[in-house]
């Protein structure tokens, strides 16, 4: 009964946040003024009649309440209109760009979670050792380092100076197919993925370390020790599973941010994902695209937060009691 109430509460919270984001998104993009005006002096050279047609097409000549109703309906149906600039349906651009981003951010999240957890466990278990000090210092340095800057340094070193890796893009323009194409993709993935992994890894290591240190002081660990359980088993069976919870949440949150794209890193490495799409849309005042990306990325974050909350509740029943 209690768990059902917990679930309901979390779902309602998420729905409320989503409703707020939906409304906020509507207001935000109406506050920037009439987007059709942007096209007057562009090379499209639209005269007032054409502007009126466009306003009608974008549905911004209706009264605001009517616009809001239309907007809600369209958003729920996944219809985000057409790009002001390219004229393509927004959802088409997003579908095309989402996979490179999932590949990049997804790989980086998995790598940084795995390595971060390993480093964190090892650091905490051998607290005060040379490894612990070095890894903690390294983690803090990486955690606090601006990702864009780190990316630029890697780019200048490995692409510009050494010429080992490509300076950008997701693939070369050579006509490759099959396995050669996959490897070409991998080659282009190395630098942006390395940058993101290094950027995330510190966070995971630090959280894992502190969480494990906390658990190591708990009574049940002491009890296990008193019972004479082997150190290895205490760590593996008692301490780490309990300490993994915050890291698990963090990993889930990170996945939620995938759709937001790694705007900065994709821009640094000219990686054609959602981040690049967002940047270009902002640069060209392409409001339908910005609006859709904003909405979808917020919705993903909310969804994954909800999933994390629900799963957390099951993994650690104390949360549900609270």
């Amino acid at each position: 009964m209690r768990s059902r109430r917990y679930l309901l509460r979390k779902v309602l919270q998420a729905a409320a946040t989503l409703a707020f984001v939906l409304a906020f998104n509507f207001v935000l993009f109406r506050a920037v003024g009439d987007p059709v005006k942007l096209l007057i002096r562009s090379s499209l050279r639209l005269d007032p009649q054409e502007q009126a047609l466009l306003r009608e097409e974008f549905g911004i000549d209706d009264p605001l309440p009517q616009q809001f109703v239309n907007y809600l309906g369209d958003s729920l149906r996944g219809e985000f209109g057409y790009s002001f600039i390219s004229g393509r349906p927004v959802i088409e651009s997003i579908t095309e760009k989402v996979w490179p981003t999932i590949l990049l951010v997804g790989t980086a999240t998995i790598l940084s979670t795995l390595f971060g957890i390993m480093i964190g466990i090892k650091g905490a278990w051998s607290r005060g050792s040379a490894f612990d000090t070095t890894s903690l210092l390294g983690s803090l340095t990486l955690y606090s380092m601006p990702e864009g800057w780190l990316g630029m340094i890697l780019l200048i070193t490995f692409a510009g100076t050494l010429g080992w890796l490509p300076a950008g893009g997701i693939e070369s323009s050579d006509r490759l197919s099959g396995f050669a194409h996959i490897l070409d993709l991998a080659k282009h993935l190395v630098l942006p993925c390395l940058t993101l992994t290094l950027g995330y890894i510190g966070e995971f290591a630090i959280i894992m370390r502190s969480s494990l240190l906390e658990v190591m002081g708990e009574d049940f660990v002491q009890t296990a020790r008193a019972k004479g359980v082997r150190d290895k088993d205490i760590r593996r069976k008692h301490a780490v599973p309990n300490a993994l919870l915050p890291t698990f949440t963090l990993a889930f949150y990170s996945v939620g941010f995938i759709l937001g794209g790694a705007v900065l890193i994709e821009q640094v490495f000219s990686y054609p994902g959602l981040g690049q799409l967002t940047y270009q849309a902002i640069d060209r005042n392409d409001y339908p695209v910005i609006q859709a990306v904003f909405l979808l990325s917020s919705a993903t974050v909310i969804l994954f937060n909800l999933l994390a909350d629900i799963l957390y509740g099951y993994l650690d029943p104390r949360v549900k009691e609270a």
Partner: protein
Amino acid sequence: MRGMRRASLALGLAAAVVTGVAGAAFGQADEADEGQLTLHVGAIDDIVSVNVFKACCTADYEMMLLNYNMLHGFSAEDLSPVEELTPGCEPSEDSMTWTCPIRDDATWHDGEPLTSEDIAFTYRFILDNKLTTFSDYLPYNPTFETPDATTLIWHSEEPTIAPTVPPYIPILPEHVWSELDGKPAKEIRAFEQIPLVGSGPFQLTEWKSGEFWRMEAVDDHFFGTPTIDEVVFHVYGNHEAMVQALNSGEIDFAYDLSPTLARSLEGDDNIEVNVQAANYHTNLAFNFGGQAKAHPDVYGTPPATDETNHPALHDHDVRLAIAHAIDKQALVDTVFQGFAEPGDTFISPDKVFWHLDVPQEEEYAFDPEEANRILDEAGYTEMTADGVRIDPESGEPLVLDIVSISNSVGSARSAELMAGWMEEIGIRFDVRVVSESKAYEEWENGTFDAYVWGWGGDPDPDFNMSVYISSQCLGWSDGCYSNPELDQLYDEQRQTFDREARKEIVHEFQQIHYQEIPEVVLVYPQTISAYRTDEWEGYVPTPSDGGGLLFGWRTDSYMNLKPATAEGPAGGPVADEGGMSTGLLVGIGAIVVVAVAAFVVMGRRRSEEDEA
């Protein structure tokens, strides 16, 4: 923890597999590329669409230039009209009918012959479907006649020089576009086709949005057959990455660099920097008011708010004083780091034939003392408590509301510097930085005193001149400037067929514009490119004196480039030739992964043993 160890092992294994096959796979890629002469060009902007009616920016126009032909081209010397699909059109006595012989050796990329009917179709298509992108080039309701496949007759309702301006309109294949005739503009603008059928010396055959677009050379084009087989334009998210790609040899040409990066390339033996004569100007454009009057005619509604232009801006002395108080050289040095020229007239110096070079002694020298003298003599002697002059007529202090545009290069910084100089002469610039859309709102309602923006234009001066015509209030005009003398000169030049005589009028127009100061032309920013000299040779600047090499008005560089003789064959990415082999690189990556995994696993074992 067992799971963790398994993950480490899996990672190590995966890396080892990658190492094993990488070398061979990349070997294949290199082989596949062999023999193909590819020019790799780096650019910041991607094409927006392959549809010419969506053409927006430099990249779109370059694609259009290579993929299509126009009635006339532009000369290498001074961008005057030269033979392309026609050797030249002949006017009737009243200049209302022009006869253009059309060449018979032009073909579409799909093999169909290009005839005069295609040209007439394109022009009609634009007019009938109200495609405003190009309709300005077809004034006075023209009609077109094609007595045979090699003759185009252009009828105009009024005397015109439009056929020789020339119209910057890519000629489209009727057999492809006719099915769109009569459809809504939205549908026409959404039409996309790859490979893109045109008649130009290169054909767009592939476009990966946000990555690259590929243009393949066409055999036996009437321009000739280029040595290069294809051009690939790579899109970079930032200038730094593009320069690094140039450094490593991934690309052969980098278009549009920041001054700082251009300086960083100085001293590299294999890289040459090209500074292109400016093709646009930045301005401080004054608002003269009149938007409220024009608004109902243009939009059918009164403006949302009242216009707010300062009455003193109608006083020539105030504008003259402002012109004298602006240090254009300082704008060049600080805002554009030297990569610009101080501006004088509104037709930029790359249009060598039309540009009026104001003699130095007639220029408004940076002279705050002179500016103060002018204002004193004009009666602006009373000051507010904080040192701002008061307009004797209206009693309002000379506090001007200056709008600068956030995404217009140098706009905000220039406005800021000018505000400092204006303090010296008792004028206050209240600078606001606004987004482009907000700026259009201000422009439409006339709620500003001046803005800092800019204008570019075609090789022909007609468009640039139209900006200062009375009828352009809420059209192209910056601040509804009106001067009957300029209106008359504009109409006159539109109907003057002798090029030299027309040039006289265009110069007179510029002279009056310079004296009357509807805007202060601030600077002509230059475009910087860089290219590798060890890959290709034979770049041709357009115009020939100080022009750009690519992204211009002609295809000369693409037609003329040959592999650099000193270094052997070109085209392949240097990274594959001189850099560390990919196999080795992936190997190193794998070793690092395995090492880290081993380190963690072994470290844990050791600690377990210690604890045991």
